[in-house]
């Protein structure tokens, strides 16, 4: 265990302090909708130039981890993912907060994030070189099918209202195509406006579609924003821990999914959390509870998105290919510092790499106490602030957040426009999540499809490109399983019912809320 020597390097008081500051800064930035992890890292990169490389990396890693976790606060407390990675956290986080379990939800998110972050970092430490090959095994067809797999979640999210879910998803897919296409460079659906050339920004879309309807409803109704639980105060940590233990398979599976998806350049935290949410729901005993405030949903998404941090560094450090957008920024920072990333890094610059990985682990562990404290404070302030102060504050933040994306008002206009459309659709039974899924996954699906087609066409084997690759077929199988699981489950239930008439009453009572 020569690696342990580097632990000592990472444990200097200065590095510990940097990790702490980084985590706190990351959490706060990540919790603000619009200020993403990428931005947090990019803004702070210049400050690291004066530090030695390992310390600089530690602080960047800590900010990144903190920001991904911080995104869960606003997802849970105001139904707005602070970062795209936290989209799926809103599905169950906000319903939990709404019914008075906000503190519990934040504690669950913290435990899951820390576990996911640790799994990702440990995989980075011990299995990085072999796992980096995963990034290479994924070609355009695999990305296409992965996006399709993510889209099958729509059927699960719109139970009882599949048609409206599909319409919402199509709207999202259309939105994802606005602007200049990456492949072909065609200008699409910009209606002659230069503002839309760059497409609909995902973060602006997230803020608009999720947050604006909540704000309008807050103003329009007398209900308090969140119900305060009877035993308010406290982290409800014991309860959260007990729930996490019963969901331990979910926790580990989601962490592994997060790591693997994090390795894929071009997928990222949002895809990781959506895929693991989908898997958690499929394998749950109570899939129908997902989306109504099921703790398992929060655990799945938060474990997965924090695992992408470690996972994303695997191709970054081994192949020199950034796994996620913040990794790209960190990679740039390393190049400026004169560190040559790539296959030789682990052997030639082992001390920097392993010190950094230990720093990442330390940062993740620091997140547990710090996160619980900040989370509790955030929850209390959201609950105790009167609505008349809360609404303008959040409204202000949505504008600042969407302005911050590119430092201009275009994204604010897009955010407000989508917000109003989202609110109108919401009132007519169209949930925002299918639209957002279409928006996030549309680009990945489209690029994967066109690239696969072009390569297949050149080789005269288009069908083989889409259906002749083992990894693709495995993803297709999972997607089909998710899509038709309700039918399969019903069929199994029916067969069992034929055997014993008493079971059927129990199952149907169980099965339907």
């Amino acid at each position: 265990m020569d690696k342990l020597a580097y632990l000592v390097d990472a444990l200097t008081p200065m590095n510990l302090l940097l990790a702490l500051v980084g985590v706190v800064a990351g959490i706060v930035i990540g919790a603000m909708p619009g200020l993403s992890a990428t931005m947090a890292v990019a803004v702070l990169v210049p400050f690291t130039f004066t530090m030695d490389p390992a310390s600089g990396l530690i602080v960047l890693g800590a900010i990144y981890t903190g920001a991904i976790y911080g995104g869960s606060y606003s997802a849970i407390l105001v139904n707005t993912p602070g970062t795209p990675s936290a989209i799926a956290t809103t599905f169950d986080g906000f319903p939990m907060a709404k019914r008075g379990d906000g503190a519990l939800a934040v504690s669950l998110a913290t435990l899951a994030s820390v576990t996911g972050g640790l799994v990702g970092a440990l995989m980075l430490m011990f299995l990085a070189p072999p796992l980096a090959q995963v990034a290479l095994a994924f070609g355009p067809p695999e990305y296409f099918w992965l996006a399709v797999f993510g889209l099958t979640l729509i059927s699960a999210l719109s139970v009882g209202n599949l048609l409206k879910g599909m319409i919402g998803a199509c709207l999202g897919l259309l939105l994802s195509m606005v602007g200049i296409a990456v492949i072909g460079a065609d200008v699409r659906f910009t209606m002659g406006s230069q503002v839309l050339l760059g497409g609909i920004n995902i973060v602006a879309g997230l803020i608009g579609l999720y947050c604006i309807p909540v704000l309008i409803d807050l103003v329009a109704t007398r209900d308090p924003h969140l119900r305060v639980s009877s035993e308010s105060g406290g982290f409800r940590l014991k309860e959260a821990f007990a729930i996490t233990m019963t969901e331990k398979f979910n926790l580990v599976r989601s962490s592994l999914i997060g790591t693997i998806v994090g390795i894929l350049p071009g997928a990222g935290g949002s895809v990781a959390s959506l895929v693991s949410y989908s898997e958690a729901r499929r394998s749950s005993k109570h899939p129908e509870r997902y989306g109504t405030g099921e703790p398992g949903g929060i655990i799945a998404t938060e474990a997965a998105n924090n695992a992408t941090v470690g996972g994303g560094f695997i191709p970054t450090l081994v192949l020199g290919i950034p796994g996620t957008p913040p990794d790209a920024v960190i990679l740039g920072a390393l190049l400026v510092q004169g560190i040559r990333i790539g296959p030789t890094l682990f052997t030639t610059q082992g001390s920097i790499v392993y010190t950094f990985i230990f720093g990442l682990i330390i940062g993740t562990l620091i997140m547990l106490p710090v996160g619980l404290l900040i989370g509790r404070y955030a929850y209390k302030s959201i609950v105790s602030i009167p609505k008349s102060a809360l609404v303008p504050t959040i409204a202000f933040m949505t504008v600042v957040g969407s302005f911050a994306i590119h430092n201009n008002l275009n994204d604010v206009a897009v955010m407000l426009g989508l917000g109003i459309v989202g609110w109108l659709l919401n009132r007519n039974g169209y949930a925002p999540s299918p639209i957002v899924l279409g928006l996030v996954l549309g680009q990945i699906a489209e690029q994967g499809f066109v690239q696969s087609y072009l390569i297949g066409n050149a080789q005269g084997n288009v069908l083989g490109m889409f259906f002749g690759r083992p990894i693709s077929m495995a993803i297709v199988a999972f997607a089909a399983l998710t899509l038709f699981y309700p039918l399969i489950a019903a069929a199994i239930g029916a067969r069992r019912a034929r055997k014993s008439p008493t079971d059927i009453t129990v199952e149907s009572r169980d099965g339907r809320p």
Partner: protein
Amino acid sequence: MKLTTILAGAAMAIGLSAMPAGAQDYPTKPVNYIIPFNAGGESDIAARLQQPVFEKLTGQSMVVQYLEGAGGAQAWSQLNGMEGDGYTIMGTNLPHIIMQPMAQEVGYKTADITNVYMFHYTPDAIIVPAESQFKTLKELVDYAKANPGLLTFSGSGTNSANHVAKETFDRLAGVTTTYIPFSGTSPATTAVLGNQVQAGFSYTTAALNQGDAVRVLAVSADERVPSFPDVPTFKELGYDMTGGAYRGVAVPSSASEEVRQQVSDVIGKINADPEFIQKMKDGGFVVIDVPYGEMEAFMAERKAEYEETAKQMGIAQN
């Protein structure tokens, strides 16, 4: 020899540090430097290398911002709406600012961009995986000739530097190959490493990051690139191809002649900094000096070159 370089560097540093107090009154406050691409790309890395030198030379800070979208068009279409006082400058890229307006309405024309300095380029490079059957460029060309359309090249974006390079290469070598656009240099390189495509059009900078995992068959520089002493240039192999993605700095059109010249001077000074030059070289960049005064001729030359390729690519001429 070493001593002289150190002395020269020291003399230069003293000379330059004395300068801001003297004749110049630019800059007197922080300068915003807008990069039209995401953080982490070549444009960003080059700007990040300029940043500390700018601060060392002028005593003012340089704030790097990102305004990505539409392959850079998002930012360039907004450039002339910004203040022309010299405190907002923007990175520009070739062939992007020539090819994009040529292909379609993107909200700006090439003539709208007031370039004041072109400070480097990243030479195009053909890369193949280390275990590829293609050991030399000749083997790749022979294969392409025998199998028209079968050879796949990955690259970053459509109508981009990689795309132009691939089309130019097809024309010069008399072959037909298939271009597969990806959303950036990283995914395009990944596709090469993972054997999703047979080869890639990339830059020396990206190839450098991959170490032994890729083989560079040729680079499109005038002379061999220091980071790849063993890789021949296209010219050596008989293909008249030099260039790649050029990067420079532009100001809004409302900037006065004086401001344009001042910005050009500062960027030129950064380009003369020995430490900067060394870091750029190490990163696979090729430093060039095209100041404001020479810009018109440089742009006209590039434009004529790209127009020929654009015709071949079937890009509509507006």
